[in-house]
């Protein structure tokens, strides 16, 4: 190999690397801004939030004890949340996945309007206007989805819209073992 080919080789190597990484980003498998969660394998932090539809009632993590469930943090201000909404509906309806929602830093009326129009995938939905639960769960963006097992331990977390690829590779195995019942 002549010396002149070295810059070309470096260029091709970098181009290949960028192509690969950007591809992963498009598929939602890699996010450079991702802050890895500290909760995998740790007990889920408890929360108690007012119900979006009935603020006199509380939505708590305790009521999900003994079940495998998803915690989805979202808001109507977040475009990715609109993108994943349809898929959440599919999971709730067709795969019987119990999803607890946290409507984060949102306008309650807008959230209700959105769910009335597009459908409500949430088993229960808490309203977190001041990030109380969000900070406790180490949430920094939306949407974020956590998987909590029957023992109340956080097993998986995904930042960004849930896609079938992400669901199948990261989340589905936990429900295949009959955990959803």
């Amino acid at each position, binding site marked *: 190999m002549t010396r002149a080919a070295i810059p070309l080789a470096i260029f091709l190597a970098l181009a290949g690397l960028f192509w690969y990484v950007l591809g992963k980003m498009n598929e939602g498998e890699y996010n450079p801004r991702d*802050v890895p969660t500290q909760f995998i394998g740790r007990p889920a932090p408890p929360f108690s939030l007012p119900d979006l539809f009935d603020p006199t009632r509380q939505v708590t993590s305790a009521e999900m004890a003994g079940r495998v469930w998803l915690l989805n943090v979202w808001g109507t201000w977040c475009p990715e949340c609109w993108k994943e909404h349809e898929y959440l509906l599919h999971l709730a309806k067709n795969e019987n996945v119990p999803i607890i929602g946290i409507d984060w*830093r949102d306008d309650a009326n807008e959230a209700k309007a959105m769910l009335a129009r597009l459908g409500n995938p949430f088993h229960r939905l808490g309203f977190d206007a001041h990030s109380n639960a969000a*900070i406790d769960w180490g949430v920094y963006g939306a949407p974020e989805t956590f998987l909590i097992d029957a023992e109340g331990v956080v097993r998986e977390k995904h930042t960004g819209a849930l896609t079938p690829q992400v669901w199948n590779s990261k989340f589905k195995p936990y429900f295949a073992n009959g955990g959803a019942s």
Partner: protein
Amino acid sequence: MSRTRSLFLVVGLLCSTLAFARVEVHEFDTPEQEARYSKLIKELRCLVCQNQNIADSNAELAVDLRRKTYEMVRQDKSEDEITGYMVERYGKFVQYDPPLDLETVLLWSGPFLILLIGVTLLIRTIQRRRSNPTVTVDADRLKAAAALLETERDTRKS
């Protein structure tokens, strides 16, 4: 431009900075608490903007993290307790000055490693240049070059 108009302009420009200044009024039990609060918000990273601390950031999460920090300071939690609370939730990334340990050793040593690589390459290049300083020039081509220069001088003169 009339005098009133320029006066308006000056006043308007003065007001523009005022409009941007965000004021969060906090009350503390002791001056020490206030110092702890301002130190902490400078050392905690905003997870949304990622290159700002929560003191500088206006992201909504930063506002809430400041409030959380304030609440904990008012409960008289120590600096380590508050940093610990944040690290437990957001990881060491939340600290602008993370501790040196196994997980962050590359972060701290990386710049020095790159410097080392650069210096090594530089020394090697210099050594290589020094070892063969003589540049061999083909005598025929040297003659051809001289002839070229000669013709150029001639054409310029004419």
